[in-house]
């Protein structure tokens, strides 16, 4: 009882906003502004807000944009992180400590610190208002974490396996791609899931770098385009918020262990 009561209470508190999103998204407009009825339930469920969202707004386009950006940025970051993580974990070279520390520091650089000068850089490169502005800048958020995570993974793989291959005449690259990488797959998967969800959720860069409707990502599109003047389309806002959260929630639910492993690897190993 002392366990289940606080547990269920916390679960309700943590999950209530999601329930609220859902119930709001299927209410009719008249039910939404009815102050006399019971707000916790829906009496005339409707899919109108979803139809409006999908047919009348750029939501599908934003989904495609977000997906493209997230997949490409994740791929770029993975390649960079695997290579950098391997070098830092396994190779002896001058400056290793300094470079490792520098990459770690960039992990703590928040987006709000550099979004304005980055906007200038994006403009100078002629990338503003394009998907590239996000594809190329998101890796700065993803690579530091990925490198850090994979460094830990590579270190946990016994050196002897690799050295045996080297003695047998394999080159370092070969030892890396054929022996170390397959063993590090769980770590790479963690890094990939992390990178994908972070890209999907990114907000301020996407907000500042884009202005036309068909370049926007889901979070930015839903927040900026479903409010006309002072009129909030609550039903479709909630439908958009819910649908926009489903992909990350799904991926996350399939790979909870990898996600939690990645999230806590740094904290526990310290």
């Amino acid at each position, binding site marked *: 009882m002392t366990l289940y009561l606080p547990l269920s209470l916390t679960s309700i508190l943590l999950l209530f906003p999601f329930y609220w999103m859902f119930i709001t998204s299927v209410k009719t407009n008249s039910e939404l502004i009815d102050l006399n009825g019971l707000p916790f339930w829906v009496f005339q469920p409707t899919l109108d807000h979803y139809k409006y969202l999908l047919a009348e707004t750029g939501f599908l386009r934003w989904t495609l944009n977000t997906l493209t950006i997230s997949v490409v940025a994740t791929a770029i970051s993975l390649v960079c992180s695997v*290579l950098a993580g391997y070098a830092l974990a396994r190779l002896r070279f001058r400056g290793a400590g300094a470079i490792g520390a520098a990459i770690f520091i960039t992990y703590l650089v928040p*987006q*709000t610190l550099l979004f304005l000068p980055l906007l200038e850089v994006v403009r100078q490169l002629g990338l503003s208002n394009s998907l590239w502005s996000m594809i190329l800048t998101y890796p700065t958020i993803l690579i530091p974490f990925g490198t850090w995570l994979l460094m830990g993974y590579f270190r946990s793989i016994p050196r002897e396996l690799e050295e045996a291959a080297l003695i047998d005449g394999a080159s370092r690259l070969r030892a890396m791609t054929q022996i170390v990488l397959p063993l590090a797959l769980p770590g790479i998967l963690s890094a990939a899931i992390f990178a994908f969800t972070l890209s999907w959720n990114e907000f301020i860069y996407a907000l500042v770098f884009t202005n036309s409707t068909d370049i926007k990502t889901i979070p930015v599109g839903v927040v900026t385009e479903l409010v006309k003047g002072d009129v909030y389309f609550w039903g479709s806002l909630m439908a*958009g918020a819910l649908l926009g959260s489903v992909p990350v*929630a799904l991926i996350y639910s399939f790979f909870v262990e990898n996600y939690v492993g990645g999230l806590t690897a740094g904290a526990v190993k310290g």
Partner: protein
Amino acid sequence: MRAETHERPVTAGQLPTIGELLDRQGLLAYVLLSPALLILIAFIGWPFITSLWLAMTDQSVSTSVVRFVGLNNFTDALKSQIFQQTVRNTFVYTGVTVVFKLVFGVGLAVLMNQSFRLKNIARAALLLPWIVPTALSAIAWLWLFDGTFSVFNWVIVRSGIADRGINWLGEGTWAMAAIIIANIWRGTPFFAISILAGLQTVDRELLDAAAVDGASPWQRFWRITIPLIRPVLLIVLLFSTVWTISDFQLVYVLTRGGPANSTHLFGTLAYDVAVRAGQLSQGAAISLYMFPVLIVCVVALLVYLRRSST
């Protein structure tokens, strides 16, 4: 790409093959690091230098000739009421949320560390507030805190606690309370899951031995568990502090820094000044004020990590 033998010395007059060159650790390391470093230098290093320059000029949407103004933007910011308010807001917002997230996080982690049915599902569900896009979950909070249709107000009025609902986002103090509540909701799962991972590394035998020696559960928690998970607590606290000080999405969606600037943080103020008012240089200077705080956190972390690894 492979060399015939692993460590064959390269003799004069015989050019090394690419494979042999890459077998030299130093060179290979830099080749492997170059893609990551290139991106980080281009989109973090270079913007950082740009931001120092930007913050010391008078660039805005209306200036055609950009002038160097030294530290004027920084001193102007310090003198402005709105900036001072922003510093206070950030202090309150970060201080209150981090303490609550820590307390709730530890509590939740201790609960989750017990064995019970459906534990895996519970753990997965509890992380949801943390993994969904914050800008989107903030929309749910926007509706929950709506002046007229807030369901909290519905409960408050119907249950007779008060005659009228709270004007959540319309009054400074309540607006601050609202973004604090939403932030705690979003951040607690991260604390809980990280601390839970820390708890799982605590040796049960230690706790059992202490119990045999007559230590109460409370004593065992404070004297054994907490000291053992202190590294995790410290790291989680530092990360959360950095993220909370630099927060943007929740405030942008819920209040835009209002009413009357009572919820502005560095990020939202910089956005307002630079993007909406077009004062690019002033905005950059405001953002840069976060930098010293960041340095303190980074140094603390690095010193701590170095000490614990030796």
